[in-house]
């Protein structure tokens, strides 16, 4: 009881801090200096219609490379931690048979979900979307496949190959930017094209597609590792 009271007091104190922050908050009327720079310079310098994508892939491209690395590390550690529990009998039946609806529905929906995922990461420089979102959509297709057939075995070798090739190509494009254009991960190694066209914004569609493949492969490997753990 004392414990709960202490926690409640802590949460209330924190709530008081937040309330003060909220009371003193006034939305900006104008963009700040950084945001203004991005708003003004994205169209002529990057050629990407989606400014958030320009920031993530080019202006702060190095951070995104680091982010993808963090994701890779967490997927690897999940695989490593759960590797011991991967001893499932092939003859084992799913405890609850999945329904006809789920099986047929997943057969119909999985290709469409995959297509949507690819669409989202290929159009990352034009629409609200991109590699991370597209990769997550692709992985949700994998999750549906796993729900429809819990004993389905995914080739970890294939997932690892997709992931490593995409990651390697990402770094190679970054280094090409260093050689052919202004710096690491500079997107101007390809022509910028016309603002709003699919083949525009230099290397951004390429980089974001690679990020999409990599993120999709990482999430899928996490899902596969988690689903392959033995029953406790």
């Amino acid at each position, binding site marked *: 009881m004392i414990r709960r009271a202490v926690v409640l007091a802590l949460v209330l104190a924190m709530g008081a801090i937040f309330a003060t922050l*909220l009371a003193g908050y006034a939305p900006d009327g104008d963009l700040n200096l950084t945001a203004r720079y991005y708003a003004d310079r994205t169209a002529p310098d990057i050629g990407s219609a989606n400014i958030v994508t320009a920031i993530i892939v080019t202006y702060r491209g190095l951070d995104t490379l680091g982010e993808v690395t963090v994701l890779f590390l967490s997927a690897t550690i*999940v695989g490593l931690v759960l590797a011991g529990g991967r001893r499932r009998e092939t003859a084992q039946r799913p405890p609850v048979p999945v329904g006809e609806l789920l099986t047929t529905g997943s057969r119909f929906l999985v290709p469409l979900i995959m297509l949507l995922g690819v669409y989202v990461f290929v159009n990352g420089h034009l629409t609200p979307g991109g590699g991370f979102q597209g990769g997550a959509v692709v992985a949700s297709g994998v999750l549906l496949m796993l729900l429809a057939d819990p004993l389905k075995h995914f080739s970890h070798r294939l997932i690892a190959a997709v992931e490593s090739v995409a990651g390697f190509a990402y770094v190679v494009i970054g280094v090409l930017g260093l050689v052919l254009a202004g710096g690491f991960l500079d997107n101007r190694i390809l022509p910028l094209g016309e603002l709003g066209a699919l083949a525009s914004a230099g290397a951004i569609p390429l980089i974001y597609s690679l990020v999409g493949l990599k993120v999709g492969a990482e999430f899928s490997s996490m899902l596969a590792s988690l689903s392959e753990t033995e029953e406790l």
Partner: protein
Amino acid sequence: MIAQIAMATGFALILIGLYGALTNHNLLRMIVAFTIADTGVNIVIVAVGYMAGRTAPILDAAVPAAEAAQRIIDPVPQALVLTAIVIGLGITALMLAYAYKLYQKKRTLDIGKLTELKW
């Protein structure tokens, strides 16, 4: 006003998550509480970038490049939150994997019974 409502929601979610993480004894419930707090942080960051009467930072016919600076909201918090969501998901998967491993070893998810690090 919308920014304040969104921000209040975010702060409330942070507090709910914090309370849940501190009062629950089950590791899985703590993980769920952490993801709720995580969502709250993301909502607060996005709310900070909101500006009344402006639109999403995507250049098209409605937002020509020349007047982008007057028409769009701050794109930086959105880029930050995109990163935070993905990392949050990775961390959640990691926590779940560790919880599974702990259960496999100790046969319990009760944080009160995992006493190795207690002094």
